[in-house]
């Protein structure tokens, strides 16, 4: 330990920048290293751990959040890139007094098995339903194809989105 102290690089080589992030409608002034991803900042700085990570390079979709209403991989988005964008995470949905219909139906259809990809699936489905309130099953599958699930076989996921869409349309 003493040797470590003696020869230590005294200056932090990381480059930091001050940025403003808008997350779930709330502004955050943050000092972030330029190498940190949006996923790093959400999880490790702001403790918004509902957004997951499973691969680090856009291969599985577990880290999906909404950027200006579109689903995006937070693990391949640098935090500094997200400045000026409207960032939505699962915590934004959960802040409402009642669970969002997507959350309700993911729970009731057992579409959330281990729960790891669930927030990403829900955010991806939200991006779809915000633009297309009455999707076909094929449209649901295509829209959610950016998120992989290892547990469900996907049938319950499609059903949850379909049921949530019906509820969001007022039962029609």
């Amino acid at each position: 330990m003493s040797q470590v102290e003696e020869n230590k690089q005294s200056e932090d080589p990381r480059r930091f920048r001050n940025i403003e992030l808008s997350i779930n409608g709330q502004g955050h002034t943050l000092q972030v290293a330029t190498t940190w991803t949006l996923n790093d900042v959400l999880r490790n700085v702001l403790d918004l751990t509902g957004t997951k990570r499973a691969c680090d390079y856009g291969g599985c979709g577990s880290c999906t959040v909404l950027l200006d209403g579109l689903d995006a991989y937070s693990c391949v988005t640098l935090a500094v890139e997200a400045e000026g964008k409207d960032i939505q995470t699962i915590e934004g949905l959960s802040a409402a007094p009642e669970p969002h219909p997507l959350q309700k139906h993911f729970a009731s259809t057992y579409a959330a098995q281990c729960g790891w990809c669930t927030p990403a699936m829900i955010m991806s489905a939200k991006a779809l339903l915000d633009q297309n309130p009455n999707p076909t099953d094929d449209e649901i599958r295509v829209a959610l194809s950016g998120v992989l699930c290892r547990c469900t076989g996907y049938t319950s996921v499609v059903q949850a989105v379909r049921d949530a869409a019906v509820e969001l349309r007022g039962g029609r």
Partner: protein
Amino acid sequence: MKDNLSVVGQNFVPVYAAKKSDGTVKFPADVSLPGMLWMKFTRSPHAHARILEVDTSQAEKLFGVVKILTYKDVPRVLFGPYKDELYPLDEEVSFVGDSVAAVAAEDWNIAEEAARAIRVKYEQLPAVFDTEAATKDDSPMSTLHLPDSNADWWKDTRRNNGDEKPTNVMGGTNEKPTWVNQRGNLDEGFSQSELIVERVFHQAHVSGVPHEPRGCVAIYKNDQCTLWCSVQDPFKVQSAVAKVLGLPKESIRIVSTIIGGGFGVKVLGRFAVLAALMARETTRPVKVWFTREEESLDSHNRSALVHYVKAGTKKDGSLTAFKVRTYMDNGFWMFGGLGENIAKSICTRPMDLYRKIPNVLWEVLTVRTNHPSTGPYRGRADAESHFAVETVMDELAHGIGMDPLEFRLKNRIHPGDPLCSVPGKVMSAVGVEEAARQGAETIGWDRRNTIANSNGAARKRGIGMAMVIHSCGSNPSGSSEARVEIDDGGVLSLFSGTPDQGAEQQTTLRQMVAEVLRVPLHTIGGNNADTSNCPFDSGPYSSRTVYCAGIAATRAAEAMKQTLFELAAEKLEAPQDQLVLADGFVTVIGTPSRKVSFAALVAANGGLLKTSYRYNSKDEVLFAYGFAAAFAEVEVDTGTGEVKICRFVSSHDVGRAINPIIVEGQIRGGVSQGLGYAMSEGFRFDPRTGTALNQWFLDLKTPSILDIPDIEPIMVELGEPTHPFGAKGCSEIPYVGVAPAIANAIYNATGARLYELPMSPDRVLRALAAVSGGGH
């Protein structure tokens, strides 16, 4: 089986589902603590080497690096999930990706950079990759006998061999297989055969791919250590950490309440032990969280396999002889992966399913190599064996012109048959025929082509099936304890040691407790898989939770009912046989006004009511197995070799479904993983270096939402007599039949046979070319 059930057998929203859907559930890697450090590993680029020197000087200089551990800095104490065989870090590395050093730093990027800045001098050693070559006397050894090693496992590798000649064969020698299943007289059996089929099968090494990469957060204070750890076996982690830290078990707390997928592969490993050591060394909380590459390789995958099969039948469909020699690529761990145990199940379970085969010789050689470690992964041992068995069954049936379904059923096991997989035990209920017939009806088995390859279209359709056996939790090893409590507010809680890795076992267990004690499900609280307040459980493997922990929870609840009745009999001045339970009260039959609440009985007891039960199946003679039949309908594009799965029916003898929505979800999930194993997954290793070439997520090729159809589950509920509610575990068996059912469907569509997994388009094209004589 019990009648008049109101909670068991009903669909309830799983108890953790809401937290999972709103993102508030805390997985181990979601835990953050003030002052927390991040730990990363330096990993070996060599498949087999001795570490000569580790130069950490450059890494130590980096800003934000707090501590580096090499094999010289860690206790030389052996630990392991099944046998003590691993050091926290070792001077020998045994696969590409093996851990060499651990770095703790102020953030994840710095830790990673420092891990890369550590310079290691290796002496490269001969590495072993080819299982068959590894069993020859001139093969190099995949492991060193380290001069200071006192490991028992090393002594075991040389046992059964007078001259102590080292061998790569686990539990055997170069001449003697790891496990042999033998009955009857093979020569006689083949001499009676009217049709003999001989085939060779190859299966790829695959990862379980739980989506949550292994994570652990450790905190060490006043000789107490707490770990939030994504593992299925928290009690084993507790013992291992205690052993390595030199502390009593009670000083170690492991929390694995909810983990992000397990599938059998998330067991005790170096990451947990090193997190604890690092937390002690730095006196700060430490988080380690695997990358996908680490999760793929520093895990317990399904081994690559080669099967040489020869089987014979009479024309009337009576199987006469079955001979197999299996080479299993165990990877680097000796016993950690239970390679011997898997070998035993590979060569015995299918021969229990087809109990009528009189003459059998099945030898398995489990070979230790320098590939990544393998071990129990969903469908353990049966996914390894049934692709070969069920393909050969199909060929034999077609060869004698018999319906493949009837051929299988003719040779199947019956209740009361002795089991070769569990000597001394006798088969309990068997629902395989009912499952197979219902599945056949649902898929429309009669629609299959009567003669394969009967049409000349570019896209060809066909239907195939497989019949399988797998553990349903009736497990002669391990035990499960459950504790039921009622507090002074009358609130009922269930405590179980088993983690929820996605199968929502707490829901199922609480349903059984709710049924016995007649309370609404949602009123039951409790905790699971936290060693500080939950009783011992071996963990969710072998589909054992519904069965073993289910029996424990039911018996604990029944003991609670007895306790309540004893207290109430006094209070109500009524005999116990005149008492019933309803909604948190004990009442007297016929006079509902004479009642006493649970809370009042707790008060009468002078505080908390507590009952527990530990289940251990060793003493029972009757043994339960899960059975299933899988039916696939495929469309093969003969131009591209692509196989579209049009329908998949997965029909199960589940005993009784405690929560049908969960059982169906487990069936669909198991089939979808099996589809990956069948069609697309599988590591490619560089044959010279042993380096995995496709360990990243997209290259793992797990099925996406666009790859698979709506899987059709069937639950046949005949009741398992050895379980209080008739239930059997069935979250693994759906995986097992998928690959052979699809292979047989491809044959039915095209006349081409596939003998290699995964059945990728190039292999399908080659198989098509083989039947059409080169062109198609």
